[in-house]
C-alpha cells in the first residue's frame, strides 16, 4: 500500500500547488507590457551598450593613449 499512498501524496501536492497558482492576481498584458516599455524608455540614456559610449568613457574601448617611455 506504500506506493499507493505516495501517489496520493504526490497528487495532493500537485492540487495544492495548482490552487496556489490559480489564486494569483494577474493583470492584462496591455498594462504590464506598457510598464516594461516605460522602464526601457526611462533608462535608455543610462544604458552604455544601447547608446554606445565613447572610447574615452569606456574602459574596454581602445583609446589613443600616450606611452610613457
Amino acid at each position: 500500500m506504500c506506493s499507493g499512498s505516495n501517489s496520493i501524496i504526490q497528487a495532493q501536492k500537485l492540487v495544492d500547488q495548482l490552487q496556489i497558482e490559480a489564486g494569483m492576481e494577474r493583470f492584462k498584458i496591455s498594462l504590464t507590457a506598457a510598464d516594461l516599455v516605460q522602464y526601457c524608455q526611462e533608462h535608455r540614456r543610462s544604458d552604455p551598450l544601447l547608446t554606445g559610449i565613447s572610447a574615452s568613457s569606456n574602459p574596454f574601448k581602445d583609446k589613443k593613449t600616450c606611452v610613457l617611455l
Partner: protein
Amino acid sequence: MRSPPIPEMATQEVQLNETLAHLKTESDTLKTKLEEERAKLHDVELHQVAEKVEALGQFVMKTRRTLKGHGNKVLCMDWCKDKRRIVSSSQDGKVIVWDAFTTNKEHAVTMPCTWVMACAYAPSGCAVACGGLDNKCSVYPLSLDKNENLAAKKKSVAMHTNYLSACCFTNSDMQILTSSGDGTCALWDVESGQLLQSFHGHAADVLCLDLAPSETANTFVSGGCDKKANVWDMRSGQCIQSFETHESDINSVRYYPSGDAFASGSDDATCRLYDLRADREVAIYSKESIIFGVSSVDFSLSGRLLFGGYNDYTINVWDVLKGTRVSILFGHENRVSTLRVSPDGTAFCTGSWDHTLRIWA
C-alpha cells in the same frame, strides 16, 4: 474451492483509486482554469504595445579583450561588483580570477573535480564560489597575497546529490543559492554550511537560476530539463509561479532589470520573455535560421537589449520590445557557454568551449 478476496484490502484499494481519480480530476480542472485565466489577459502582444518606440540603429560591438589561460572548455563566468574583475570556471577543473581591463590573471584555483559548471563572485569581491561534478558548492576567500594557496582556506558550503549547475550569492557574502542536477535548488548559510531552505518542484535537473534584482523581492527564478521555469519564494520554499512553454531544456534564466519579467534561453533555439504580473509568456525571440540551442542570456542595463550566447558559436542581440534581432556577433570558435553583462553595463563577457573568454563592447 476459491478463497474469497480479503474484504478489507479490496475496499482499501478501491478507496485509493477513487481518491486518486478525484485528485486527478481536480488538478485537471485547475490546469484548465489557469490556462483560461492567463488567456483572458492576452489582450495584446508586447511588440504591439512597443510599436511607437523608436527602432534601434546599427550596433557595432566587437571583441575588446580576449582572456586566454583555461586549458579546456569555459563553462561559467561572473563579474565582480567592481566592474573589472571576472571569475571563470572550466572543464579543466580550474577557477581563474581575471582583471578584465588588463587581461591579467590574479588568482587561480585547481578544483578536485573536472567540469566546474558554476562559479560566482561574492558581493564584497573578497571571495568566489564554485562547484560542479563534485556535487558541492565551495567558497574560496581571495587573498591579497598572490602566493597564498587559496585551496587551503576553502570552505565547503553546499552538498547536493548530483552535479551543481549554478550558484549565486544573495545580497551578502553570507548566503548562497544553488541549483543542481538532483532536481532541487537550495539556500545555504556560508559560515555554517547549514541548509536554510530547499526548493522542490522541478521534475528533472535544474540548470540555471537568477535572483530577483530588488533587495526586498526575496524571489528567484530557476529553469530546468523539465522545460519549466519556476519562480520561488525564498522564505517559504514555495513555488509561486510556473511557466512551461519551451520545447526543450532551459539553460539560462535572467530577470528583466525592473524585476517584473524574466528571459530564458533554451535548447529549443529560442529565447522567451515571461511577464510575472500577467503570468504568461509575452515574447519569443527566434528565427528560422537559428537552429542551435541558447546556452545563456542577459539584458543590457535598460532591458532594451537581450544578448544570447548560442551553441552555433554566435551571439544574437535582440530588441526585447520589438522582438527582432538587431545584431549577430562572431568571434568564438566553439559554443558560447556563458554570458554576462558587466555591473555598469559598459560591456558583456562571454565564455566558450574554445577555452577563451571575450569582452565585448
